[in-house]
């Protein structure tokens, strides 16, 4: 009865919000390569598509600000080519996304869209963008299946969930030198998918597995299994609410195993819930640490009065791919789509090129570590 609305809806929104993660940077060169024969770009707009209100609004606003910074910088540099920014506030709701996508298709001035931000809304809006031939670049949607639908307009600038699992397993084996791994998941599409990949990659080192439920607060049986398995590392696939409780109860029961989690836990809420127990937790994320790109960091801080957060830098890169194309005279959807498909250039987060499905060809996964109550960059994880 009431839990379907009361607990379910916020958790769903949370789940959507968190298939994403942290701040980024790269080096200073923008994706907007060289000047061109400019031409007039009257009535040209790029869109931002994602939540600006609703429970996951913060995540969407971080992304929108990245896009806005790129557009503002572009307009400042190119007085004769002013690009406007259209915002489509989906509130992170896949049901609202279809109507908004249709609206974006109907506006001929919009020739490229950064977004949709979350995997759920990407799933419902994707076919509409594909039919309208409107190119999209998502800065945060990480569900691996999104690129398998044959939408030629779909692109993203970050590694999907399938790249994080092997990276986490690599870190556990090579850096932690762990010989006994215990894998826990929360039965969500995100968490269970990741845990399965880690389990496969870790192979014989897996000494036990367990599945918990979202919303659960007592993990004593899980902690007992971890303790009696003698594991020296624990991987948890899930979100920060359960992760905080689980690690706290593990430490409370005297389990010293290293706690390894993925981007769904890269949130201050994890440390808020776990307190001192969070110390030493390893968090993987397909995102660069913000200090890797000082110029972007300070420009962003100046523009919005706050440090760039989750996926701001990825959004900045995505917008710059479009803007570079517009500067080259690609001011309709068809030619801009072609531009994006063939794009190759340095972004602040990585060298950006897309494969035929719209997946980025260069992926970087970083390990972060909780130290003194802060999530700090540890090292890049070598994949492949």
């Amino acid at each position, binding site marked *: 009865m*009431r839990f379907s609305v*009361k607990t379910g809806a*916020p958790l769903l929104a949370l789940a959507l919000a968190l298939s994403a993660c942290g701040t980024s940077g790269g080096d200073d060169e923008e994706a907007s390569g060289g000047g061109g024969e400019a031409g007039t770009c009257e009535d040209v707009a790029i869109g931002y598509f994602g939540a600006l209100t609703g429970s996951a609004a913060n995540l969407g606003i971080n992304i929108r600000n990245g896009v806005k910074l790129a557009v503002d910088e572009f307009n400042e540099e190119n007085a004769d080519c002013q690009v406007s920014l259209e915002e489509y506030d989906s509130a992170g709701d896949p049901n609202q996304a279809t109507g908004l996508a249709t609206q974006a298709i109907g506006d001929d001035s919009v020739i490229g869209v950064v977004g949709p931000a979350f995997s759920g809304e990407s799933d419902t809006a994707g076919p509409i963008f594909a039919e309208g031939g409107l190119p999209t670049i998502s800065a945060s949607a990480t569900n691996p299946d999104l690129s398998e639908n044959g939408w030629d307009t779909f692109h993203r600038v970050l590694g999907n969930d399938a790249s994080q699992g092997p990276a986490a397993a690599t870190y556990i084996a090579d850096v932690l030198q762990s010989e006994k791994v215990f894998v826990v998941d929360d039965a969500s599409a995100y968490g269970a998918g990741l845990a399965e990949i880690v389990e496969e990659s870790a192979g014989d080192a897996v000494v036990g597995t367990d599945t918990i439920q979202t919303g659960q*607060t007592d993990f004593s049986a899980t902690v*007992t299994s971890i303790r009696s398995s003698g594991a020296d590392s624990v991987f948890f696939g899930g979100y920060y609410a359960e992760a905080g409780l689980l690690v706290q109860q593990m430490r409370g029961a005297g389990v010293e195993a290293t706690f390894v989690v993925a981007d769904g836990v890269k949130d*201050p809420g994890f440390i808020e*819930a776990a307190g001192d127990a969070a110390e030493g937790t390893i968090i993987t994320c397909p995102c660069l640490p913000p200090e890797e790109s000082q110029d972007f960091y300070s420009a962003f801080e100046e523009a919005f009065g706050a440090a760039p957060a989750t996926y701001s830098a990825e959004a900045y890169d995505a917008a710059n791919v479009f803007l570079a194309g517009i500067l080259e005279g690609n001011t309709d959807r068809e030619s801009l789509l072609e531009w994006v498909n063939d794009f190759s250039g340095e972004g602040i987060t990585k060298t950006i090129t897309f494969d035929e499905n719209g997946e980025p060809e260069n992926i970087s996964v970083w390990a972060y570590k909780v130290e003194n109550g802060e999530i700090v960059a540890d090292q890049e994880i070598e994949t492949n």
Partner: protein
Amino acid sequence: MSFLFNNFVELTVTGLVLGAVYGLVALGYTLVYGVLQLINFAHSEVWMFGSFAAVWVTVALGVAPGSALPVVIGVLLLALLAAMTVSGGVALLLERVAYRRLIRLDAPKLVALISAIGASFALAEIMGLRDRVAGWIGLRDTLDPYVRSARDNTRFQNPLETEGLFTVGGYTVSNVDVIIIVSAVLMMVALDQFIRRTRTGRGIRAVAQDSEAAALMGVNRNRIIRATFLVGGIMAGAAALLYLMRFGVTRWNAGFLLGVKAFTAAVLGGIGNVRGALLGGFVLGLAENYGSALIGSEWRDVVAFLLLVVILLFRPTGLLGESLGRARA
């Protein structure tokens, strides 16, 4: 299977700890049901408010773990008092706003049930939006430590450090484990005595048996109903502190799952039966732990609720079955 036996003591102790919390919350359901024959679905929110009261006391006092023992005990007692006061207050407020008029008009039970569900939503959402509420009255910044990340987990900084006391069967029983189980049993005994021996307790039993006859004998029915809500709220407040000592975290919607489990514990033990509530809590906590150990944590609710169904099939009135009214003096 061998996992269950190898870790039997640990699973039993942690199951009893969880069960003790279920049992104390279950008392609130059982008492109100015993007297009014309705399920107070907003009781989970009574518990949730108590848990926040305890958290806020420790935030306000800012006691670091590892303080001197008298300080620790003092802080915990203050937190307990705050949790009991707030929970008791919310329970009284519920009675006044969501129930009293309906009871006076003799409205159908279903109406009171809907009213309770509505109150439960409202209370939970108010807690989840407490940062906005603080903003309206212009105190958002002043109250920041109390209202920030209103929709995320809020941590309880337990002033008492967890310490192992003794080891049985490979499991080191901690001071917190002992405190929780012992205080739950003590409170249970105290409540049982209260209902059996005091004047108010006799009134509660009388109203539970036959409220009209009780009124004819000079029992003030409204006062007894208020007392029942208050006692249930106080027990929920105590449960809130014990819960925080073990799990360390609360949130605006944490009451929901706990409420369902506590209600289950009340039915399992025999709803309307005070002793049954604690027994039901213990049985449910143990069943969840053993079930998780046998087949995996994702099955814990399946095991627990299957057990409920089976027990009710054979004992439709629950394990102890007896209603509040028929408790012997």
